[in-house]
């Protein structure tokens, strides 16, 4: 493992705030809404999603396919394309609100303030240009006036911090293995020391050993630049090992946000509870419990709480009123009528 000269390279260049770890929230998402207008109707992919992250914190985002995890990532990067539209909400990275930026400013913010590491790096690298060129053009697009050698140094450092030899710069994408390509994408993601890094299922296509390597790399670079990391995935085991907080999405809504320990020991939301209890564990081998029913189509969401048709604890009010996003003690967030009273107590306390 190479040791890196943290002082010169890790110094954040584009941050306007000097954020001491863990004190100032570096990412605030407020009431984000995204709708897709399809031939078959309107699908609300994100419904009033809000959460906060501090520098150096890791958030795991879990949910079934179609729950809105990737949409959330794309929305934060303002990369939602037709027929989707961002209809409301704010995304604060440090002092900057991303939704209010014009196109050019948002382009500059990408990679420098908030970086996205794609799912399936297999095809994310340009097949006809060298790896080095792809790192360099990312730098050149944001920092003007840096000398060639400074740019080269920066790229070399980035490669080294993901455990790749800088000679990789001269290679082409098809000459690298899957894990190496993924690490190149991570290197690109950290080139400009962004405040927020979103890793979208970075390990899905990889074998277990490479998975671990990649996760450790992400951890390490996070330490170096003190970024907030959002890890999107559906592998609960991986989440348990690597994140601080877990957010659960269902049908476009954020139904629970808790610390990883709380999530795995005493989840609040019935969906989260069902998820956790469906995880196989060593005590009841061979007994598999699923969640009855199917996730609803976003085009025809049930009235009231989206989960109520499958919920074992559904009440009258669940089919008529949408549950509000409630804050419980300790900062836990849950969206469920079961906790209306508890949240009210926390409020008044």
């Amino acid at each position: 493992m190479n040791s890196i000269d943290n002082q010169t390279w890790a110094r954040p260049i584009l941050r306007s705030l000097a954020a001491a770890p863990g004190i100032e929230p570096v990412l605030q998402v407020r009431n984000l809404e995204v709708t897709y207008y399809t031939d078959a109707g309107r699908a609300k992919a994100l419904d009033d999603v809000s959460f906060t992250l501090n520098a150096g914190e890791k958030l795991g985002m879990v949910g079934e396919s179609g729950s809105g995890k990737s949409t959330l990532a794309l929305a934060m990067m303002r990369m939602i394309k037709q027929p989707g539209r961002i209809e409301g909400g704010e995304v604060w990275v440090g002092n900057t609100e991303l939704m209010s930026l014009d196109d050019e400013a948002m382009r500059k913010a990408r990679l420098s303030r908030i970086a996205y590491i794609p799912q399936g790096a297999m095809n994310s690298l340009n097949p006809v240009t060298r790896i080095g060129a792809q790192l360099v053009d990312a730098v050149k697009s944001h920092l003007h006036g840096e000398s060639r050698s400074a740019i080269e140094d920066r790229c070399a450092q980035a490669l080294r911090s993901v455990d790749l030899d800088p000679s990789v710069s001269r290679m082409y994408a098809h000459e690298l293995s899957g894990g190496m390509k993924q690490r190149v994408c991570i290197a690109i993601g950290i080139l400009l020391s962004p405040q927020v890094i979103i890793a979208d299922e970075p390990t899905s296509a990889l074998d277990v050993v490479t998975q671990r390597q990649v996760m450790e790399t992400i951890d390490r670079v996070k330490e170096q630049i003190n970024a907030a990391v959002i890890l999107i995935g559906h592998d609960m085991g991986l989440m348990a090992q690597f994140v601080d907080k877990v957010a659960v999405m269902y049908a476009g809504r954020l139904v629970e946000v808790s610390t990883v320990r709380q999530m795995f020991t005493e989840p609040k939301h019935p969906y989260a509870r069902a998820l956790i209890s469906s995880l196989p564990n060593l005590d009841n081998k061979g007994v598999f419990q699923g969640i009855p029913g199917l996730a609803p189509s976003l085009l025809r969401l049930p009235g009231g709480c989206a989960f109520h048709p499958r919920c074992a604890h559904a009440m009258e009010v669940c089919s008529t009123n949408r549950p509000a996003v409630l804050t419980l003690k300790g900062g836990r967030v849950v969206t469920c009528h079961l906790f209306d009273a508890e949240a009210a107590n926390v409020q008044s306390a």
Partner: protein
Amino acid sequence: MASIANTAGAAWMPAEVRQPGRLALLLRYLRRNKGLAIGLTILLLLVLFTIVGLLLGDPKHAYPLSAPTKRPPSWQYPLGTDFFGRNLLSAMAVGMWQTAVIGLLAGGIGTVIGVVLGFLSAYFGGWIDTSIRSICQILTPIPVLLIQVVVAGSLDKRDVTIYTMALIVVMLAWMGPTLVIRSQVLTMKERQFVSVAKLSGVSDLGIIFKEILPCLLPFIAAAFVGQVFAAVFASFYLAVLGLGPLREPLLGNIIWSAQTQGAFFNGWWWWPIEPAVAMILILGSLALIIMGLDELANPRVRRSE
């Protein structure tokens, strides 16, 4: 490794999402895919013109000595007449009809050959694949139009009819669709749904017709339009060189006879210009349709309102 399990139960099923009617979807799509819409409209107008022309006019007027010669467009002769006394209105209608016949016939044959060969080649692989593919590749650099000139030039003038034209035109045109269909079938062969079908015991023939063919339809459609385009273009080219069925009022023939009689320099501008415009519209609309079908075949580009 633990993942989120999601086994189906019968507890609750989401309500059916009502899809808007097929026609509504089609119209909405055409609104977006303007190229396709314009191309189809122009083609429709041309078809209407041809049908009206054939019904209202007398097809015999499309041949020489049926009308006073060299008349410019007027009320009596809306498109004028030419040196040989052909009523250009009827001539154009008949000519377009004949062009359509050649195009559809040659296009159809070419597409069928392409689909069959491409399919056989991709599905069975092995030496069938290698031989078909090699033949296609070897024949490709040969300038097709020139060979067609050779063939057409070798024929006795009396043997050249619309149908022989169609055959000449299709002779070297089928390689394109063959290779395209072949590569599409190859990609599909590898895809999971074919393996699944095989595993469930569906017969080879069943797989072909029920799984692969439906996915191939947009490509077959595009190949067909492309073949029609190539056929019309080639027949026009041969006719302009004077190698077509000279008696027939094929659009290319009209231009050829106009050129040989020095139409422009004698001031009979309408004689070559009208078939020229018609040909431009035909080929242009086909080209737009091809462009539109491109978009259709690539689902990534389809956008909703």
